[in-house]
């Protein structure tokens, strides 16, 4: 039987592609339309895992929940990018840190009509909806408390992360999917609510391309989770309105391989990644680090002057091992006592450059062509000196810094940090860079030459196509972006609701 003959046909009024922070919000916010007789479907590429499948075992979980097992690489292999692929998208695998975008950063986006007060109000809406709270002091582990105390001692501004948890038992496995469903991501809050209101969620379904109000898709069940609501095969899905929420890499890739009417020179361009690296220090005694919530504090003291931010973190053995520079005896010595490690992650704020972009290969798969700028490398280098100071002020006996001239810097040497680290050592490939905050690629704006969507996420010149994920950010958010993604998605959903008659009957 030919492919054409075996293609199933489906129809919705509205299709949402992707079920993460943005897809979840769009689904929930449009779900009241189901009561008015409209059909709304969410198409998710990844699986919906069963509760017992959240095992906390690192390799097993990254293979179940992340694209490429967590190792999506940039074209030059210099940065690994963490992207969730599951019912709930990346909200299943983030730590739930919830910061409202700073006013000056949003204003610097220069999007006409996008007001800070509106975004703040909508962010606060999701603080309530997703149960964003400050963790009680007694539930904060030493890895976090030592960072707080050290920052205070050094006079660095430090804040506590509000996190979206309810009933957190401190498994410390947020990045592997919470085994207790205590993290209030879209998979726990928005998607179930949307489904209750009549939205259909189809998992294990990849949208291959979009044509005029038609999506071509393929259902293929993963080897974990619940099977898709649709039987495996090729699908042609008609919809009056399509909202793409597939994230800042897969959204532009999908649009690039689709036959869209018009010319979009900015499509895929201006990607930003918040390039990140990890520093670790070793205490003489065990500390509580992998027990409890892993991420409680951040230091934005240098955000404006040096363009970087520090956050507490605690990773799993393989992730930790690959994040350290070097190999052999020293590396093993660092890894031999995971219970003595204190970790800090540094995020640099990168600028949107047209040359940094998502392209597609001959098969339509995304290629992230991103060059780490000298400015970012300078920020990362400066951040390492600051971070090493914090680690020593926390009481560690030795620090491993990726730009160190030797593997360990001992506490007796802490007055010579500038001498013991070298900007020359900070080379891509030599140090392990990572990203979990992918933004840009379908940026909002008025000019179709430098942007892809208008301020409402509507693709220029295509009234039936919206983008609502972090790809619409015109510049990076300079904070963990998920709350801003939700706030913008909320705004886009409201616009769709307000114009539904016109959008359904063009």
């Amino acid at each position, binding site marked *: 039987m030919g492919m054409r003959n075996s293609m199933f046909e489906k129809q919705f009024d509205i299709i949402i592609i992707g079920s993460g922070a943005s897809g979840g919000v769009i689904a929930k916010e449009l779900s009241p339309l189901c009561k008015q007789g409209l059909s709304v479907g969410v198409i998710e590429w990844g699986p919906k895992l069963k509760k017992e499948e959240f095992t*906390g*075992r*690192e*390799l097993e979980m990254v293979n179940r929940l992340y694209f*490429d*097992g967590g*190792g999506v*690489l940039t074209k*030059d*292999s*210099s940065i690994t990018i963490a992207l969730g692929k599951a019912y709930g998208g990346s909200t299943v695998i983030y730590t739930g840190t919830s910061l409202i975008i700073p006013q000056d950063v949003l204003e610097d986006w220069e999007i006409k009509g996008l007001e800070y007060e509106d975004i703040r109000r909508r962010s606060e809406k999701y603080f309530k909806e997703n149960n964003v709270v400050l963790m009680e002091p*007694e*539930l904060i*582990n030493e890895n976090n408390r030592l960072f707080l105390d050290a920052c205070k001692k050094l006079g660095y501004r430090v804040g506590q992360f509000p996190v979206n948890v309810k009933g*957190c*038992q*401190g*498994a*410390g*496995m947020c990045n592997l999917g919470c*085994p*207790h469903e205590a993290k209030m991501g879209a998979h726990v809050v928005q998607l179930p609510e949307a489904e209750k209101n009549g939205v259909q969620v189809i998992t294990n379904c990849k949208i291959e391309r979009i044509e005029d109000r038609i999506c071509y898709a393929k259902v293929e069940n993963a080897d974990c989770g619940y099977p898709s609501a649709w039987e495996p095969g090729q699908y042609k899905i008609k919809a009056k309105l399509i909202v793409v929420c597939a994230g800042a890499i897969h959204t532009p890739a999908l649009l690039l391989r689709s036959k869209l009417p018009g010319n979009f020179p900015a499509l895929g361009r201006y990607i930003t990644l918040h390039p990140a690296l990890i520093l670790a220090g070793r205490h003489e005694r*065990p500390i*509580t680090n*992998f*027990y*409890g919530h892993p991420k409680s504090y951040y230091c934005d003291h240098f955000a404006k002057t040096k363009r970087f931010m520090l956050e507490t973190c605690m990773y*799993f*053995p*393989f992730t*930790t*091992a*690959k994040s350290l*520079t*070097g*190999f*052999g*005896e020293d*590396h*093993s010595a660092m*890894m*031999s*006592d*995971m*219970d*003595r490690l204190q970790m800090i992650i540094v995020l640099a704020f990168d600028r949107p450059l047209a040359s940094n972009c998502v392209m597609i290969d001959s098969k339509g*798969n995304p290629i992230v062509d991103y060059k780490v700028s000298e400015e970012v490398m300078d920020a990362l280098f400066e951040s390492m000196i600051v971070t090493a100071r914090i680690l020593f002020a926390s009481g560690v006996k030795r620090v491993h810094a990726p730009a160190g001239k030797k593997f360990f810097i001992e506490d007796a040497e802490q007055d010579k940090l500038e001498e013991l680290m070298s900007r020359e050592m900070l*080379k*891509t*490939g*030599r140090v*392990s860079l990572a990203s979990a905050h992918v933004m840009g690629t379908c940026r909002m704006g008025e000019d179709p030459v430098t942007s892809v969507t208008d301020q409402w996420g509507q693709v220029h010149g295509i009234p039936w196509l919206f983008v609502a994920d972090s790809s619409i950010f015109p510049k990076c958010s300079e904070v963990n972006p998920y709350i801003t993604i939700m706030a913008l998605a909320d705004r886009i959903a409201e616009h769709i609701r307000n114009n539904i008659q016109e959008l359904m009957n063009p």
Partner: protein
Amino acid sequence: MEYNFKALSAKKAKFVLALAHRIVPETSKLGEDEKCELLHVVDDALAARGPSIRIQMIIFLEIIRWSPFFRFGKPLEKLTTEVQDELLAEFQNSLIPRVRTGFWGLKTLIFMGYYGNCKRWGQIHYTPVLNGNEKLHV
């Protein structure tokens, strides 16, 4: 040791193991079955990658193995451990970005094979529990 791998040949698997002993010295103390487990993780990860990355990594393995031949007349694994470590450090610090990222990719696969195995966690004092909050004030 029986090899039945998807991406690695028996020869390449043997070289990965030799490389593993330099990257994570503890791997030399693993039993035969444990070494096989490590290689299977590496092989699975390679097999799961697209053909382009897989081929690049396989070629890079050969480059690492044979590049010392012109200086020392031997493949990497036949050199003293000190020389092997020096040469591997040269790859890590190479002036050519592709060489550095290639080496990073290989060592990452080996880290995955060793530290990704939860049987190793006790040895590195990584003992996560589901009720971690109860351990905070013990």
